[in-house]
């Protein structure tokens, strides 16, 4: 069942230097029970996209286009209506749990408050739900932890509390923005394991925002690659890693230290991402692309179009044969080397 549909979303921030189009014509959809990964580097607009969906943008931002949760249109909704949806139908977890946990309130109180804002239950019932919620995310002795303050817990435990809080009211849509980036690799493995279990149980649509292709490979069903405010490629996860279609995706995969042999130099994408104040005309990746043709620099960038690969779409002028050949050559998996 289609749960989230984003259509031609544009999010623009007003700044002293002029408007910045952080999200520039993004369309995507996620089904219930599915995990969509959104990958890209700093400044590509992935966080602006997630805040747009949650209705958490600052006043300096304007959005156009459409965001639908089920049948309900979210763009243009009043603040109070959005507040009712947040924490109920949709929830978000952040990289740093301390941005969403109140440091001077006991964990139990925060959980109970979150439940009673959205569900008509007694305090005792809310308390029971809160303890169950903590137990469900693998927090040992949850009864005791209810009395703890956030800073008394380790980073991994705080992340679990935040996940528990996000899931309290059984959201239909969960947005996770770099949920494991601040954690150690062993704790990250625990949280990824937890998210894998949860997605089987809660049947929510999950949007996972990350810069880490390893996390994408572990958890996602589908992946959208963002560059300079736009989606340049979208594909089922196995396809993306086996037959990447966009030159930017090739660069990302090829620059991973784990994928290339130790003798050869790591592949570097030349140049730096463009400023979104003055994005390049044409394809925004063209100035850094080894395959760019004249048309790539001058003509409007191609739209996301289906490729010959099942379920995949790419915004690139190169022909299918070149994309298949160069994609495997440049970003080939270890097995193919």
């Amino acid at each position, binding site marked *: 069942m289609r749960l989230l549909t984003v259509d031609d979303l544009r999010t623009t921030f007003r700044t002293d230097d002029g408007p910045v189009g952080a999200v520039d014509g993004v369309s995507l959809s996620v089904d219930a029970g599915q995990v969509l990964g959104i990958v890209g580097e700093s400044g590509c607009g992935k966080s602006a996209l997630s805040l747009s969906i949650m209705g958490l943008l600052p006043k300096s931002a304007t959005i156009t286009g459409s965001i639908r949760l089920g049948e309900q249109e979210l763009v243009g909704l009043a603040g109070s209506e959005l507040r009712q949806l947040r924490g109920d139908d949709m929830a978000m977890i952040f990289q740093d749990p301390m941005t969403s946990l109140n440091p001077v309130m006991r964990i139990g109180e925060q959980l109970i408050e979150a439940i009673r804002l959205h569900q008509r239950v007694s305090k005792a019932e809310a308390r029971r739900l809160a303890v169950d919620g903590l137990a469900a995310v693998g927090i040992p002795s949850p009864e005791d932890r209810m009395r703890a303050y956030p800073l008394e817990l380790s980073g991994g435990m705080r992340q679990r509390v935040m996940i528990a809080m996000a899931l309290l009211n059984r959201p239909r849509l969960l947005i996770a923005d770099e949920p494991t980036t601040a954690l150690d690799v*062993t704790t990250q493995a625990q949280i*990824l394991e937890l998210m894998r279990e949860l997605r089987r149980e809660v049947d929510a649509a999950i949007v996972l925002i990350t810069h880490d292709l*390893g996390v994408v*490979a*572990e958890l996602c069903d589908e992946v959208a690659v963002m560059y300079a405010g736009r989606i340049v490629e979208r594909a089922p996860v196995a396809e993306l890693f086996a037959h990447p279609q966009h030159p930017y995706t090739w660069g990302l995969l090829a*620059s991973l*230290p784990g994928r290339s042999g130790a003798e050869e130099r790591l592949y570097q*994408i030349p140049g730096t991402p463009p400023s979104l104040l003055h994005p390049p005309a044409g394809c925004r990746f063209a100035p850094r692309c080894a395959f760019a043709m004249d048309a790539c620099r001058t003509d409007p960038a191609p739209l996301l179009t289906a490729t010959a690969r099942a379920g995949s779409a790419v915004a690139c002028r190169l022909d299918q044969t070149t994309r298949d050949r160069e994609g495997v050559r440049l970003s080939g998996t270890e097995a193919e080397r």
Partner: protein
Amino acid sequence: MSEPILRATGVRIGFPVTRGIVFQREVARVQAVDGVDLELRAGETLAIVGESGCGKTTLARGLVRLQEIDAGSIEFMGEDITRRSGRALQGFRRQVTMIFQDPIASLDPRMRIGQSVQEPLDIHSIGTPAERKRQVQEAMERVGLNPEHYNRFPHEFSGGQRQRIGIARAIVLEPRVIVCDEPVSALDVSVQAQIVNLLEDLQRDLGLSYIVIAHDLDVVRRLADRVQVMYLGRVVEEGAGEQIYQGPRHPYSHALLSARPIADPVRARSQTRVVLQGDVPSPLRPPAGCRFHPRCPVAQASCAQQDPQLVHAADGHGWACAYPLQP
């Protein structure tokens, strides 16, 4: 085998835990580094890996004498520099420099970047002003910065370029050793690749030796000749990179390696993982016996009593475990 350029023996570094605001008194001591030996040979990269709180950064700061060490010794090119101070330490500081994780925090925002790169030369009074300027320009070119940007401020640069400024500062003194504390972990993947390549180029061209502190095991595998795995202040396994990556003997190293996300959906979902339970215990009260035993998937009853020492095989691969994994 050549003489080590930097050698640490039995290094212990602790921090006081104090109570009271006006009359502070020491009520306990956290042993952040608890008896570490290491040897860095010329031209080699030694990586120190482990989770937060394992003591790797404290150890790095101790090695460059930014942090006083409580016990043990540090030798640089055969000379004991553990107790040196003032002028006697200056020579060492010229030869052993450091690169930090956060290039923003390590640069003075009000200082032009050329001045930032030149500062170490000024401190050590090296050369005439004209010579200093030339050295700064050389260092900037070497790390891929445009020397014409000498007069710009740090905020005008991207994260990757700021890290290049930090590296220029570290190489301008023409050191023998650079200690790199998480040199790429704050950077995007594509920028990370640029900095990793730069560090490799500099090592080859300038004959540098590196100590790399990192938690990203894929970056470490690429950079390091030898690896030491730390847990709660101690080295639990050490050896050549491939010895550790291909055949870890300590269950902690194995768990650490198996926890990394694999950027390949087919392998990522087929491999069986050792997911460690719980968190690293507090270094204030390290567990008795083997410090890893409460989280160890293969611990035996005796592990709670006996504290295993690092033992080495003939090939130099060492581990501190009573029941090591079979390679």
